């Protein structure tokens, strides 16, 4: 009951309005200060101001809850303009939409299938066992007793998304990177439209189910007869989420086993299928005590072009041999357009690209890489160089495909670290 969401667009705009005012005044302050600052302290102050702006945005978004928050979260995934802490905060509050009570569940099921839940399912648990993108997941069973996971969408969420997108647009119009952020919003809108159509996710799930054939990997089966645009029914996989699994203090062998599985899924999807299953969100994996890894939630699948897939190993090899020309040439083939002179490009390579490449390819050289036994966290080590790369302003169109790919990598490394796994990463990338 404490979770009341400011509902009307007017009320929401009211909330947003205060944020715009606050953010606006920050800008003025900055503009006034600027002439007196040296280059480095100016950068520092800008950083500080970005942080403050982000803080205001975060406050606003968390007041809005629901879809606005999700949009903000996607925005932070999409562009690297928001600071890390904000991204973390946002990812924590990923799935906050108001819970559906029994009357709405009934209504939704009747609306989609023309029958109440008790007629459609043998058993249907009115209490959700997990939150999902824009909805919630219930356990149920078929008339033959097969366990099911039924994902239900909050009614009217598509309308709310439309309103919220407009709202978020109006907020970021006033911020410093408005143009960049606004173009990301268009991309987000497309993806959200896909996400609210569960049929799309059903297709993705089936596609992965048929194409990703790996030992010990399980992907749920879609029940088309019990699915619609707003309801997605699949078989329910056994297993627990990452944190719960870690609490059972699994052995090192088990850690390595699951880590390797995760890595193999990543490599095989990327090379074999030219597609990646969502971003590596720990909530999308189920660890089963029989050694099987379950993959769930195919709402957000990213597909890559064949060219991109072909060029990635070339890039990694070039990084490994520290071949500046080859690295830059590969980036250019990937579509990078750098607005830089020859000398600038050289220093960009030395200062930004190579440190990033060193970090990225480190695990490949080692044969198997132990993510647990390092004094400093490996991902933390890499974070700075990753951030530098992502923040380069003079490069356009490198952005989307590549940065998203890197982020997937990065997220995966973070999970490995959390698992304390040793993983053999040598094989696939450099062949």
């Amino acid at each position, binding site marked *: 009951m404490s979770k*009341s969401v400011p*509902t009307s667009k007017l009320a929401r705009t009211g909330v947003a309005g205060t944020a715009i005012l606050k953010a606006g005044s920050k800008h003025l302050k900055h503009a006034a200060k600027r002439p007196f600052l040296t280059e480095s302290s100016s950068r520092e102050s800008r950083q500080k101001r970005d942080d403050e702006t982000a803080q205001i945005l975060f406050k606003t978004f968390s007041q809005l809850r629901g879809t606005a928050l999700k949009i903000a979260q996607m925005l932070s995934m999409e562009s690297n303009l928001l600071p890390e802490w904000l991204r973390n905060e946002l990812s924590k509050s990923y799935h906050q939409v108001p819970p559906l009570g029994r*009357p709405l569940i*009934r*209504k939704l099921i009747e609306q989609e299938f023309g029958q109440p839940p008790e007629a459609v399912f043998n058993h249907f648990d009115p209490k959700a066992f997990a939150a999902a993108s824009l909805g919630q997941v219930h356990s149920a069973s078929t008339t033959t007793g097969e366990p099911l996971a039924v994902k239900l969408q909050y*009614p*009217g969420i*598509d309308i709310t998304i439309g309103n919220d997108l407009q709202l978020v647009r109006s907020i970021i119009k006033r911020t410093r990177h408005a143009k960049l952020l606004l173009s990301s919003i268009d991309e987000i809108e497309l993806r959200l439209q896909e996400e609210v159509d569960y049929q799309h996710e059903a297709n993705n799930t089936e596609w992965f189910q048929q194409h990703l054939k790996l030992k010990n990997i399980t992907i749920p089966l879609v029940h088309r007869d019990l699915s619609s645009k707003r309801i997605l029914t699949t078989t329910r996989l056994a297993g627990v989420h990452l944190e719960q699994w870690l609490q059972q203090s699994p052995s090192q062998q088990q850690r390595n086993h699951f880590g390797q599985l995760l890595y193999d899924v990543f490599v095989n999807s990327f090379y074999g299928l030219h597609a990646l299953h969502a971003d590596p969100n720990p909530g999308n994996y189920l660890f089963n005590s029989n050694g099987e890894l379950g993959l769930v939630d195919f709402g957000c699948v990213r597909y890559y072009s064949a060219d991109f897939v072909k060029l990635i190993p070339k890039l990694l090899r070039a990084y490994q041999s520290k071949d500046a020309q080859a690295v830059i040439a590969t980036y250019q083939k990937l579509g990078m357009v750098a607005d830089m002179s020859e000398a600038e490009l050289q220093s960009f390579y030395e200062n930004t690209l190579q440190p990033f490449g060193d970090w990225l390819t480190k695990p490949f050289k080692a044969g198997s890489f132990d993510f647990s036994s390092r004094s400093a966290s490996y991902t933390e080590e890499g974070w700075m160089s990753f951030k530098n790369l992502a923040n380069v302003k003079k490069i356009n169109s490198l952005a989307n495909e590549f940065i998203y790919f890197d982020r997937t990598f990065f997220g995966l490394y973070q999970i490995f670290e959390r698992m304390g796994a040793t993983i053999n990463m040598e094989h696939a990338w450099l062949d």
Partner: protein
Amino acid sequence: MKVSKKEKAKTRQRILQAASDVIIEKGFKSASMREIARRAEVGDATIYNYFTTKEQLLYGYCEEKQDAVADALKQIKDFHEYSLREQLQQLTETELALWLPDREFLAEVFELTFYSPVSSAVNLAGTRKRFTHMVEDMIDAAIEAGEIPDQPYRELLAPLYWDYFTGILGYWLKDDSEGYANTSQLVDRSVELIAMVLHTGMIGKTLDLFSFMFRSHVSRHLKELGEYTAPWQKAKRRFMEGKDE
């Protein structure tokens, strides 16, 4: 020929359904008793044994609807396990679901009653009674089970919910979102608020506050307002006479 009670109820229902159909097609004003009778396949005169005016048909249909809603709620096996909030929401959603095929008909009812409180109070009395009876039952059951505290002015709560529900219907009739999703959200959130007021005993606490304020502050100062019953200092002049003299 003697007509059985059951038969009679059936005919009544058939007439009401026909009335709804005809009114949706032609509008209330152009619908005629004769046409309704034909549609219901009863004699032109027979229909008057059941309903003497067109208005009666209109409001009779609304009453019938409430019975259907009550039946639908009884059909939900675990309805008694629902929280009060869920029950109220289910009631509201079920009303909407059952009114859906007759949405245009409801619009006519609204047209005729919404702007004339007197006619609505008289003609919709039966409908209102059936509706509030359901709400009362839910609230009473929740109090009996200790789900919510006892409420002061309990008898006012159900009529208040009726007023709220009338507002929801009005919103719904104007809702153009897909699947009336906006109405669903409005109901979801407003019922939550209503349930919160009932759960926290807000009504009682508010009354407590007012009575405290009144006793300790207002009544204490009443004397200072002066003796309003004191006699006049001199006699009043006559009405309309001798102001300037």
